[in-house]
């Protein structure tokens, strides 16, 4: 097994990975930008290397600097966390070529599944249910228009290289298709340097449900239940939970098995997530695969009693998967809320800055993943995620009560610092969320009604 893990990431996930490395007796190397020199993971690591200035391009996305840091610290494994280089095939390949274990799927798998069109084709071939759409990229606007006609509106135009909610556009009016196709194409070109697009039927009101899978290098794999991530603002998840409320056991089983079948077909190794859309009739449709540990992985850990990062590391080290499907038993319900340093009152603009006061929730069955601390800062250079508040309960209602209690304890203050805490509480208190019948349209509905409320106030005042 490797002995030294370089964590090519920052923030809460770097700290979280470091903790598991410690428990496995692995040396930890942290890399950090000048913005992060006071980060707790830098203090916790056995060795830390400053790899560049604040902008991610020059530090956390700087492959040569990170690989050089690995070389000089003798790191024989790299954990990429999520985001940044976690799904960049070249990076995975570069690590392997240097004899450094990349904790993630093989480069070719990342490449195939990272290409949305290729992934769609491969998963269709593996027998996963698909929404009607194009086989592979669509060349010209006219072809797109024809295809859209066959698929039926509304359709969604997606960039092959897209992901994370960027580079996609819903088209409801046939007359708009050509124009919007062109727009998305140029956006894709500038965003990803790849202007290939594909089409899919769009489901206006569907649930975002994903499957956590785990595969070893020997063709064995398991799925660890479902996560419902339907509470999204602008396609960004803000609340995730497991199990997916109200889904019948047999649907859960079929989705899990489908995801696992797709993973094994693709030669997947490590921890991964298969994202599906679940429609009102209980049908499920493949969306995409995330070839990394997920932000929301803790909810699965709490219900299954499994340390997913530990499993990632062991599998990457070539060990056989210790878990068996029939041995896995989920207990109770878990919910995660992403507390962001952003201001709901001002269109959720990020509100970075110094943290002068920070009180984190604690107590029974509450877990907070964060690297924020009183006296620290939320850097404007990165994602404004301030903390992940995660709770467990024997059932969903108790988990909800616990989350309300936990968020109530959350207190962060500082010059110009605002958080979405109260907005999260508002979502938790929405009747549809309480009933567990919400879909991806819920949060927009709430923000819209609030916006209306504000304008009304304005018109009154």
């Amino acid at each position: 097994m490797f002995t030294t893990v370089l964590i090519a990431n920052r923030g809460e996930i770097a700290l979280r990975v470091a903790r598991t490395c410690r428990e496995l007796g692995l040396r930890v190397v942290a890399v950090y930008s000048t913005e992060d020199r006071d980060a707790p993971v830098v203090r916790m690591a056995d060795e830390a290397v400053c790899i560049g200035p604040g902008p991610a391009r020059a530090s956390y996305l700087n492959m040569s600097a990170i690989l050089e840091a690995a070389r000089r610290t003798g790191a024989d494994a790299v954990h990429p966390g999520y985001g940044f280089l976690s799904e960049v095939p070249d990076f995975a390949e570069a690590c392997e070529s240097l004899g450094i274990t990349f904790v993630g799927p093989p480069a070719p798998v990342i490449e195939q599944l990272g290409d949305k069109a290729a992934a769609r084709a491969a998963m269709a071939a593996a027998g996963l249910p698909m929404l009607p759409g194009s086989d592979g990229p669509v060349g010209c606007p006219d072809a797109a228009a024809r295809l859209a006609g066959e698929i039926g509106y509304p359709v969604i135009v997606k960039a092959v290289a897209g992901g994370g909610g960027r580079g996609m556009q819903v088209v409801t009016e046939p007359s708009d298709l050509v124009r919007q196709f062109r727009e998305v194409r140029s956006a894709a070109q500038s965003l990803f340097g790849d202007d290939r697009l594909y089409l899919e039927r769009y489901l206006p009101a569907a649930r975002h449900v994903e499957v956590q899978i785990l595969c070893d290098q020997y063709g064995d794999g398991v799925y660890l239940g479902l996560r419902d991530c339907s509470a999204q603002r602008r396609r960004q998840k803000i609340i995730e939970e497991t199990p997916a409320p109200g889904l019948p056991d047999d649907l859960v089983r079929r989705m899990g098995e489908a995801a696992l079948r797709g993973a094994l077909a693709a030669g997947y190794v490590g921890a991964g997530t298969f994202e599906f859309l679940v429609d009102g009739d209980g049908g499920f449709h493949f969306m995409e695969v995330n070839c990394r540990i997920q932000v929301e992985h803790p909810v699965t850990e709490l219900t299954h009693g499994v340390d997913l990062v530990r499993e990632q590391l062991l599998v990457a080290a070539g060990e056989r998967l210790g878990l068996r499907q029939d041995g896995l038993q989920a207990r109770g319900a878990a919910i995660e809320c992403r507390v962001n340093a952003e201001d709901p009152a001002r269109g959720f603009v990020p509100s970075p800055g110094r943290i002068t006061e920070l009180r984190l929730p604690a107590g029974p069955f509450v877990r907070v993943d964060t690297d924020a601390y009183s006296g620290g800062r939320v850097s404007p250079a990165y994602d404004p995620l301030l903390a992940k508040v995660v709770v467990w309960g024997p059932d969903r209602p108790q988990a909800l009560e616990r989350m309300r209690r936990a968020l109530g304890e959350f207190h962060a203050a500082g010059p110009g610092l605002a958080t979405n805490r109260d907005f999260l509480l508002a979502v938790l208190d929405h009747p549809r969320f309480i009933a567990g019948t919400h879909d991806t349209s819920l949060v927009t509905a709430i923000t819209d009604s609030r916006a209306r409320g504000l304008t009304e106030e304005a018109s009154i005042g």
Partner: protein
Amino acid sequence: MTGLLDPSLRVPPVPVDTADTCPLPSALAEPARTVADDLDDVRRSAQRLLSSVDRRPSALRIRAGEVLVELEWTDEQPPAPQHAALSGLTVPQAAPAVVVAAEAASGGAAAVAAVAAAPAPAANGFDVCASTVGTFYRSPEPGTAPFVTEGDHVRRGQQVAIIEVMKLMIPVEAEHDGRVVAVHVTDGTSVEYGDRLLTIAPATGH
């Protein structure tokens, strides 16, 4: 954390909770001397102090009213919570009042509260505080005359009120001879331990 050097300064140990230490007369309140004199003494002392330490401190703090001198040395590895300890001290607006409040997040709260706990003699007299949680009564029986009213002169040990706690009648007594200048709690209301009940101005001549 507090490294003390020049013994001639006879520095007291840093108090764990300085809240209830009542202000002693200022060590520098001699009318004859000017501020400049004082500053000079302090400066000389500070210079001696600094020259006498081998490792450069990260902070020096001198205070002459009930002498206090502190030197701080910076550790190699910065633990985060030290930020935390500080964070509480950052908010303040203008008034020292707010300053204290600002401390609340860190150690300071102890300060604010504890002040309330052991009330220093009020400017205009001594406070009589509740010795227990309970209900405050000004008179021995409902409808009868109060033990005392503003302006009354009282002797040390004289009963001035009652606190009832679980049917138990606990007499409240004056701790000094003097004149009742204020009754802070209305009859029949409930009080907590340490609540201010009455203020008694020292009898003239004392």
